[in-house]
Structures are given as structure tokens and as C-alpha cells.
């Protein structure tokens, strides 16, 4: 199964939830927000939201800015 994370292709052998994917990327779930196919996913749903083939996942956090 192929998904896109921040436009980068990632091949997954199994179905993962957003929470599991964030964990597998060694990211801190607290400081990460997610949108799937440009739809914002509430944090409470990360543990149950299963990513599908060709999903485009955006993972965001804070960055330097004025």
C-alpha cells in the first residue's frame, strides 16, 4: 500500500492508523497535527483513523516564523 506523507511516497506493508504512523516516524504525537487528503483530522481520532491506499497525509508542526 502506497501513501504520501508530506508529498513523500511511503510504502506500508500493513494498515496503520495515523497514531501508529506518527510513532513509526519517531515523531511526537503531541506536537504533530495531521490532515488526510486536506481534511483536518481531530487529534482524538489519530488512534482509530486507518490510512488507506493513496491517502495523502500532511503532518505539520511549528516552524520558525514572524
Amino acid at each position, binding site marked *: 500500500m502506497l501513501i504520501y506523507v*508530506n508529498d513523500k511516497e511511503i510504502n506500508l506493508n500493513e494498515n496503520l492508523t495515523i497514531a501508529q504512523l506518527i510513532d513509526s516516524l519517531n515523531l511526537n504525537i503531541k*506536537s504533530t*497535527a495531521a490532515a488526510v487528503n486536506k481534511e483536518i483530522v481531530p487529534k482524538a481520532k489519530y488512534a482509530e483513523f486507518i490510512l488507506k491506499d493513496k491517502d495523502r497525509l500532511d503532518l505539520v508542526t*511549528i516552524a*520558525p*516564523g*514572524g
Partner: protein
Amino acid sequence: MAIIPNNHLTTNFEDKLKIGKYSFKSRLIVGTGKYPDFITMQKAIELSGAEIITVAIRRIDFEQKENMLSFIDQDKYTLLPNTAGCFTAEDAISTIRLSRELAIFKTDLVKLEVIGDPKTLYPDNEELLKAAKVLVNEGFTVMPYIIDDPIVAKKLEDIGCPVVMPLASPIGSGLGIRNPYNLKIIKETVSIPVIVDAGVGTASDAAKTMELGVDGILMNTAIAGATDPLNMALAMNYAVKAGRLAFLSGRIPMKLYASASSQMEGIVF
């Protein structure tokens, strides 16, 4: 090496910046962009004396080795997410909504900017007003970045923004205050605080801005882009305080001719 600032201005001096239900001792808000590294950013923020710091919301860069958050004391600072880079109301609203899913922001304060042109980074008033309306209705404390236009400022106040943030000159330009009269008119037009956002180049700009009677300044490039960002952060810390105190103290009127400081009585020769 920078000197640690003394925060005592005068005794019993209580002069807080109020933004909606929040209040702050510092009238200087600083950005986190354009620093050569996170350590410099961290130290500059500390020396600026700012309590609110702005951050952008961006896709995670998987190549980035250092985590910006580990350089920010989240108990000490109020992080203010911005909508920098958004050109439509829809994008700005989505960015703010997405920022809510980060367990980072402890307040509902948001800096709203909707850009109309990449060269000047001037805001698109129509889109800005649209976005402000939606976000205020969703309960956010919206701090809008605006052109120095009293009419837009009034409209945003009427929508429910508890502050307006007019530019002094274009973002990152360092041109200082292009139109001090408009800033004064804005201050007289609205009854909410006015924070000058963008354009300050050096400490005298900051002091002069505060002397106009505005309530605060938001800056980034003037500090981060200085040859010595740490000492410039300290200079801005002092300048904002000096300008504020001078404003509150009431400057003398300007006169064409001299007025002797030494008394005339008792002159010997």
C-alpha cells in the same frame, strides 16, 4: 556578550498590555524566524523580554535534525501561531484550525495574516475580514496583521478582534514607520489596543513607534537579521520600554527658539 536587562522601570509601575482576556507585562512580541540557529533564537527571545512569540505552522521537515520546540520554554512563553504564507481566507482558517490539533498552544490567541501580494506582503483586506469573522465566531482571539488603514482597523474591531496590528512598513523591510500619522489615526479610531507589526529596523524605530502611543510592537527581522541578534534583542527590549515610558511621561512641545535651562537670576557677570 549581552547584558541582562533590568525589568524594573520605575517603582510601582504597572503597565500591562491587554489582548482580550489576556494581559502581558512586555509590550514587545517577537518572531522566531530567520535566526542563524535555534540557540541564537532562544537567547535573543530571552533578551528581548518578550512573553509572546510567534511561530508558523508548516509541514514537518524529516531532514531537520533539531526540534525547534526543545529550544522554547513552553511554560515561560505564550506561543502565537501565525497564518504566514496564506493567500486566501480559506487557507488561513484551515491553518488555524489545524494548529488547534497541536497540543502546543495554551491560549486561543492567533495571529491572522492573509497576504495579497508576495512582493510587498501587503494583506488582502477582503480575505482578511472574511477569515477574521469566521475565526472570531469559532472563539479564537484573533490578532490581525493589517495595512495602516483606519477603516479596516475599525471593521476588525467591529467583528470582534481585541487588537489590530498595522504595519509600520513592509514585512522585513526595516524601513521604519512610513506613515506615523495613520498609526495615530488608527489609535484614535479604535478603542482596542494597537500593536505595530512589521517594518521596524532598529531601536530608534521601536522607541518612536511606542512614543506615538501605540500599545506594542511585533518584530522579527530587525532582531534576527541584525549582525548581533542578541544585543539587538536587548536594544529592542529597552527601546520599547523607553518609548512607552516617554509616551506616558508626555514629551515637551517643540519650539522654534531656545528656552534656557539655567535660571537667569543670580548671574554674576
